[in-house]
């Protein structure tokens, strides 16, 4: 028996996904593996994912795997690699909600109008939607009678097995047809639960040995597992109990049929939520709206959510459900606004009444009046325009504020990740980890198989570059067909380019596939773990041999392929100028480079604090190697995790990287942040950070830089380009797009919302609601309608990126501060950042003074077009 001890690395605890991956990792060997949690003394056979999940394992729990059997040595090596390399990252792409809101969020005055009734709940999925309510209820429980009709354990067991099979088939079909990656993943997790040997064996045991009806057995075993999960202090794990109940409900439906299930309880729906949630299926209560609807239910399982008609679904109001539940994840994936309310409030909603679901604020509004409906229409329109802007922004070329192009690329491991990469606006594939093709199989992929994958990637790139990293495995990522010896220190051992000489056949095969695929586009190769020029020459020789072989076979291929070096050892980092003799480009693998440079294992639970890219020496290393690449006149990229973190972006821009490659979902945020940065400022920042005494000082310096408002100079012209997006480089005080003439806004609330929205659309405010709140705070101390037909709302907020003015002239004059207030014919909103420079404030002061001039006001009332308004305001600013 071999024992491997480890600290459990995942923040969400041991849930279905890591459990099933651990199973997969064990299944390849003839061994028995027992999982032990040393903190709570839970023990689970790895064969049962549910037993694993029920072990209530939390992050940093001391755990161990006990491996025994014929192949225990091989299995131990593979599992050790799995625990260190794969497990810590399996949750990386779980979509998480924004930080939970603290306290009650601020609401604009229109929400406090008479007759408006709203419930404050928690956000599950953003967005707003309105429709009539449809209420769904859950049946009390599964029948306790024998499905077979008689007390025959064997027959009952057969029916149970048949029901399991039917549910499995259903799940497989739905999962195969699911277009959403999250939906498929969740359905597969459910599939694993139905197929779970631990779950099935316990139910079968009760049916056969205790002569229990299947329904009762399912309910009992489900409750047993669910209780353990619900006791867990990980919210994420507690939510998984609902998934199990979903499975139980489906099994019950298969066993007994939907019609024979007990009816939903009478009376207020709150009653059924106390204590254990029942596991029966959903039934309707009260009238069903015929058109669009908001679904109201205490709980909704993922499969129930998937079964809803999404074309007519405008929102979800759920009971006590957390933002990490599978249902909430799906709601976010499908962009359905969703809010969770406490059970007693849920019970106050009646079937058929009109609701607005405000996912952003976590609000449910009952029977909204006309004012509020208008406000939400405005908001929905704004959200649509914002989504269009974000989509357009994703696709535009990435550049800094001073218009320096930096290629933003994606890291991928297999062909399935190509589409998400392009959809997120990737401008290239900066790292294709080819080793994924080679892992977890008994023989290496052949030339044709590899050719198919590489050419699919290059074809989908449509002219964009794809960089394939040649085989990067070693003692820690063992391949059964590549007898690499086990090592004490695999990270410093016989890995990557170091074994290419001995296994040249395998590498030549890969290079042949790459040379062939390169015919279809801009394909490049990158060599991992290089420390010397000799190693690059070896790869060049192998390439030449591969080309000769293809020539002999008369197969079409490229003869001049760009060969780059992955810079991940300090030795390489300090020799770019000499390596440039054999390398066409460089890409920094910052994860390994940092690990080797600081001598810190990045997965070591006790060394987390030491693995820090902000070590000033590491920053100097980056600065130096970038200078080396420049003087050698070579393209320099970076493809480690550092590249996808907006916090570090100014440092990388400062170093002068030509390309950054990252997980696809990080691309939009990085592109947006890049547009706010100035190359010169970033260079100075990196210089100063590199001179800091320690990480802490560098971190403070960087935080200060990142928090600072945009101090861009003012360019007195429209700040927008032809597609209606702000110039990422320009920073005008006002743009034509922020001027609304003949606006439909009828109240101060609508006008303020519209103007804040225009600034958000213009990219001047990251969250319009914070500005709206600041403006209203000012407005309630003293209304800003000062006579002369003018209102001048203004506010200061951290979400304002640069001092900005938005202008609105309503179609009909607005009674700004009450029925008796003088009509307002023009509204000028001023947004000021929390930490802005004085330059802009001085301009605003000048403009304010100018508004006291009647002639100026009259020309603003009369201006027929936005450019005229722009010119007038700019002239006032120039005089001021």
């Amino acid at each position, binding site marked *: 028996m071999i024992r491997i001890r480890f600290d459990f690395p995942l923040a969400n605890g041991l849930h279905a996904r890591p459990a099933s991956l651990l199973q997969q990792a064990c299944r390849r060997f003839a061994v028995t593996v027992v999982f032990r949690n040393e903190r709570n003394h839970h023990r689970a056979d790895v064969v049962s994912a549910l037993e694993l999940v029920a072990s209530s394992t939390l992050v940093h729990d001391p755990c161990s795997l006990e491996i025994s059997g014929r192949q225990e040595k091989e299995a131990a090596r593979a599992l050790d690699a799995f625990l260190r390399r794969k497990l810590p990252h399996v949750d990386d792409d779980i979509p998480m909600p924004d930080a939970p809101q603290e306290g009650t969020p601020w609401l604009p005055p229109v929400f406090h109008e008479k007759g408006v009734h709203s419930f404050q709940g928690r956000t599950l999925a953003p967005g707003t939607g309105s429709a009539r309510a449809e209420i769904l209820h859950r049946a009390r429980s599964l029948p306790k009678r024998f499905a077979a009709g008689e007390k025959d354990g064997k027959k009952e067991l057969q029916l149970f097995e048949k029901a399991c099979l039917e549910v499995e088939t259903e799940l497989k079909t739905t999962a195969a047809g699911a277009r959403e990656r999250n939906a498929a993943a969740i359905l597969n997790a459910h599939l694993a639960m139905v197929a779970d040997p631990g779950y099935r064996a316990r139910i079968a045991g009760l049916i056969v040995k205790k002569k229990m009806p299947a329904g009762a057995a399912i309910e009992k075993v489900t409750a047993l597992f669910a209780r353990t999960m619900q006791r867990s202090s990980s919210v994420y794990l507690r939510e998984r109990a609902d998934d199990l109940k979903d499975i139980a409900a489906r099994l019950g439906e298969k066993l007994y049929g939907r019609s024979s299930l007990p009816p939903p309880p009478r009376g207020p729906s709150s009653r059924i939520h106390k204590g254990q949630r029942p596991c029966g299926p959903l039934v309707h209560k009260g009238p069903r709206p015929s058109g669009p609807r908001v679904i109201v239910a205490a709980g909704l399982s993922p499969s129930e959510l998937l079964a809803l008609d999404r074309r007519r679904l405008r929102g979800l109001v759920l009971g006590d459900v957390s933002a990490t539940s599978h249902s909430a994840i799906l709601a976010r994936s499908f962009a359905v606004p969703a809010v969770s309310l406490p059970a007693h409030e849920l019970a106050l909603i009646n079937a058929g009444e009109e609701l607005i679901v405000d996912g952003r604020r976590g609000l449910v509004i009952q029977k909204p009046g006309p004012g509020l409906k208008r406000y939400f229409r405005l908001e929905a329109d704004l959200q649509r325009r914002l989504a269009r802007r974000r989509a357009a922004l994703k696709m535009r070329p990435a550049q800094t504020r001073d218009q320096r192009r930096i290629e933003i690329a994606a890291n991928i491991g297999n062909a399935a990740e190509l589409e998400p990469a392009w959809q997120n606006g990737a401008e290239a594939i900066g790292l294709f980890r080819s080793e994924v093709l080679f892992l977890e199989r008994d023989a290496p992929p052949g030339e044709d198989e590899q050719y198919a994958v590489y050419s699919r990637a290059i074809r989908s790139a449509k002219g964009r570059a794809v960089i394939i990293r040649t085989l990067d495995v070693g003692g820690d990522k063992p391949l059964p067909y590549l007898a690499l010896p086990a090592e004490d220190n695999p990270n410093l051992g016989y890995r990557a380019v170091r074994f290419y000489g001995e296994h040249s056949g395998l590498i030549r095969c890969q290079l042949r596939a790459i040379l062939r695929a390169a015919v279809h586009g801009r394909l490049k190769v990158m060599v991992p773990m290089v420390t010397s020029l000799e190693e690059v020459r070896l790869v060049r020789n192998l390439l030449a041999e591969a080309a000769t072989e293809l020539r002999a076979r008369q197969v079409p291929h490229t003869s001049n392929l760009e060969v780059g070096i992955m810079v991940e050892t300090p030795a390489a980092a300090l020799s770019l100028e000499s390596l440039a003799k054999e390398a066409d480009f460089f890409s920094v693998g910052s994860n390994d480079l940092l690990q080797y440079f600081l001598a810190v294992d990045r997965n070591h639970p006790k060394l987390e604090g030491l693995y820090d890219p902000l070590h000033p020496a590491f920053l100097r290393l980056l600065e130096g190697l970038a200078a080396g690449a420049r003087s050698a006149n070579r393209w320099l990229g970076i493809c480690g995790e550092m590249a996808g973190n907006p916090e570090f972006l100014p440092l990388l821009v400062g170093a002068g990287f030509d390309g950054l490659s990252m997980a696809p979902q990080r691309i939009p945020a990085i592109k947006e942040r890049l547009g706010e940065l100035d190359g010169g400022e970033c260079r100075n920042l990196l210089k100063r950070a590199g001179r800091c005494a320690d990480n802490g000082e560098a971190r403070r310096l960087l935080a200060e830089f990142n928090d600072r408002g945009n101090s861009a100079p003012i360019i007195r012209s429209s700040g927008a380009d032809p597609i209606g997006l702000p110039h990422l480089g320009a920073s005008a005080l006002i743009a034509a797009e922020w001027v609304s003439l003949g606006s439909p806004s009828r109240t101060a609330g609508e006008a303020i919302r519209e103007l804040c929205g225009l600034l958000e659309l213009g990219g001047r405010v990251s969250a319009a609601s914070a500005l709206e709140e600041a403006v209203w705070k*000012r407005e309630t101390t003293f209304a*800003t309608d000062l006579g002369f037909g003018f209102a001048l709302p203004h506010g200061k907020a951290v979400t304002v990126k640069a001092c900005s003015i938005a202008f609105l002239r309503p179609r009909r004059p607005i009674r700004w501060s009450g029925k008796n207030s003088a009509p307002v014919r023009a509204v000028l909103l001023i947004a000021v950042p929390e930490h802005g420079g004085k330059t802009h404030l001085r301009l605003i002061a000048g403009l304010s003074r100018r508004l006291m001039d009647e002639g100026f006001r009259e020309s603003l009332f009369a201006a027929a077009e936005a450019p005229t308004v722009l010119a007038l305001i700019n002239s006032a600013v120039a005089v001021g």
Partner: protein
Amino acid sequence: MKIVAVTACPTGIAHTYMAAEQLEKTARRLGHWIKVETQGAMGIENELSQEEINGADLAVFAADIAVQRQERFAGLKVIEVGVQEAIKHPEAVFGRLSG
């Protein structure tokens, strides 16, 4: 008449300067000498010197928040109005001087 004035509002972004402008324009039209100190988001600007204050006939505070460094005006007659009033009805503010 020789007048010194201070304007100040809660955010100090716009109204402070609008009030200052109105007071300056109106005072000049009425034939008074005036200097207006603004206490806004940019801090104290166009600061009144002690000599100017000492030589003034009276002071006007057009403010919705407490005026800073009030001790400078000890002994001087001060007329206090809201910022709104100074913006909307500056004549009325000066009307109080004679009244």
